[in-house]
């Protein structure tokens, strides 16, 4: 369970303004927003790469706001997969366990079920630079899950893939999330990706605009920013507020 309360952060001219979210245990939560709306920044706050100026982040009831990223035990997968190019697939996958002092053979034993579940056993000795986009995503997912995280944070995980690979990886993400009963926050700006979510949140100009099931957001968008993302017609948009935080 991830509980975010009134997170404020300034990064250059951009501000996250009292962003709040509540992700339930085993929930697949999609956070949508336009480019530059602050969704990746919020994700970086959750995984500890950025320190909020105020607010509180709790994971499974434990306040982690002041903790280092390594102490939060979260799986984080960035947009470009971030595979380490100087390591092969095996070393990438076992990286988090080795960093925590787990012996090599034990790390291999612990990650084997995950490798088999994701169907990447045939890639283990390959150089990461030689993998296709979809294979890279699966390896990055395996790496993020190897240390059995409390929750998984995905920053536009399929945006660099073509349509068939995007559908395949999204289905894989949902399947893995259900198998492991993980809380997932998936950041994206595509409605197709949001379709796999239990609930969707929309963020615009650093403020969370609306949270709910996708159907609810499409039928009853609270602000123009939500309506724009949900591709609601102009007629319905005219009657809406511009949205909190918008200039």
């Amino acid at each position, binding site marked *: 369970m991830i509980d975010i309360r009134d997170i404020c952060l300034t990064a250059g001219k951009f501000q996250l303004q009292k962003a709040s979210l509540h992700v339930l245990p085993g929930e697949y939560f999609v956070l949508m927003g336009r480019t530059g709306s602050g969704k990746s920044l919020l994700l970086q706050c959750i*995984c*500890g*790469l950025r320190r909020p100026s105020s607010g509180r982040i709790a994971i499974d009831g434990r306040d982690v706001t002041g903790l*280092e*990223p*390594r102490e939060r035990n*979260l*799986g*984080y997968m*960035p947009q470009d997969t*971030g595979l*380490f*190019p*100087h390591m092969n697939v095996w070393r990438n996958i076992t*990286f*988090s*366990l080795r*960093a*925590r002092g787990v012996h090599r053979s034990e790390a291999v034993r612990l990650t084997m079920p995950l490798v088999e579940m994701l169907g990447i056993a045939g890639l283990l000795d390959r150089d990461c630079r030689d993998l296709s986009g979809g294979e890279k995503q699966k390896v990055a997912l395996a*790496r*993020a899950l190897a*240390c059995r995280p409390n929750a998984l944070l995905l920053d536009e995980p399929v945006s660099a893939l073509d349509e068939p690979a995007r559908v395949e990886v999204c289905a894989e993400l949902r399947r893995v999330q259900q198998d492991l009963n993980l809380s997932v926050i998936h950041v994206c700006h595509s409605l197709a990706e949001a379709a796999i979510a239990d609930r969707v949140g929309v963020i615009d100009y650093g403020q969370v605009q609306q949270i709910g099931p996708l159907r609810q957001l499409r039928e009853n968008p609270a602000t123009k920013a939500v309506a724009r993302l949900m591709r609601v017609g102009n007629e319905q948009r005219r009657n809406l507020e511009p949205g909190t935080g918008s200039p």
Partner: protein
Amino acid sequence: MASPDEITRADNDPAGPAALAPPRWSPLRIIRRYGLAVVTLSFLAAFAGMVLAIIIANIFSRFFHFATLVELFHKPLVVAAMKLSAVTSLTTLGLVVLFCIPAGYALSRYRFFGHAVIDTIIDMPIVMPPLAIGVSLLVLFASTPGRWLGERMDAVGLDRNAAAGIVLCQFLLSAPFAIRAAKAAFEGVDRRLEDLALTLGCTRWQAFWKVALPMARGGVLAGCVMAWARAVGLYGPLMVFVGCVRGKSEVLPNTIYLEVSTGGLEVALAATMVMIAMAGAALVLIHAVAGSKRWWGI
């Protein structure tokens, strides 16, 4: 007039039938296509050829005799110079690795007050004439704080007129090359990968050792090789700052100078061959340690 049936695909092309014909080779087309490669490769080959020519000229010179080279290893003073060269340059290399990798990393990763000033100061020994550095060190050690420092060095057995002085001089003149190369190499490593390593359970130190340093390895290594090469070949500033006492503060470049000055061209040439062999061996060793397959052209 052609009937509609006779109209070909080429005729429909707006550029006409010539558009589908294979391109005709003309000198201009060849220059455009291969000119850049030919010119740049020619310059590369010319320079490599010059270096090889120097080595070959040494080997086939009438002043070079293999017997003199063997004899060299039986001359105690020359052997002492070789040992001093090896010990001081390797000590300098150790110091370079210890100081310059962290310094290059700090310059590439952190922005602090005076960053640009420090960045410029580090380049000073590169652009200053080496002799001027030797003179400056001499003046520094003649000043009150310098004399105090010299006394402290003497107290712990570091003779500034022998190996310790040589290492100090070599380090000052070679470290900037390594810092500059390390800075460029670390700047080439995506900082987000280090951040990602933090989310995967690393401390900042682990992220440096496991991600940043291995990824910057090539550039860092090249900088260390450059620094070592500069250190081992240093001559002028050592003559000024440390002096050249045979058997005490004489390094191989000094031997070459002294032998040439006294008409011993054969010995000087033999010592030159030793230096070339040392440099070649060091380069091969370093590339082997780095595991660089590309070096062999594979």
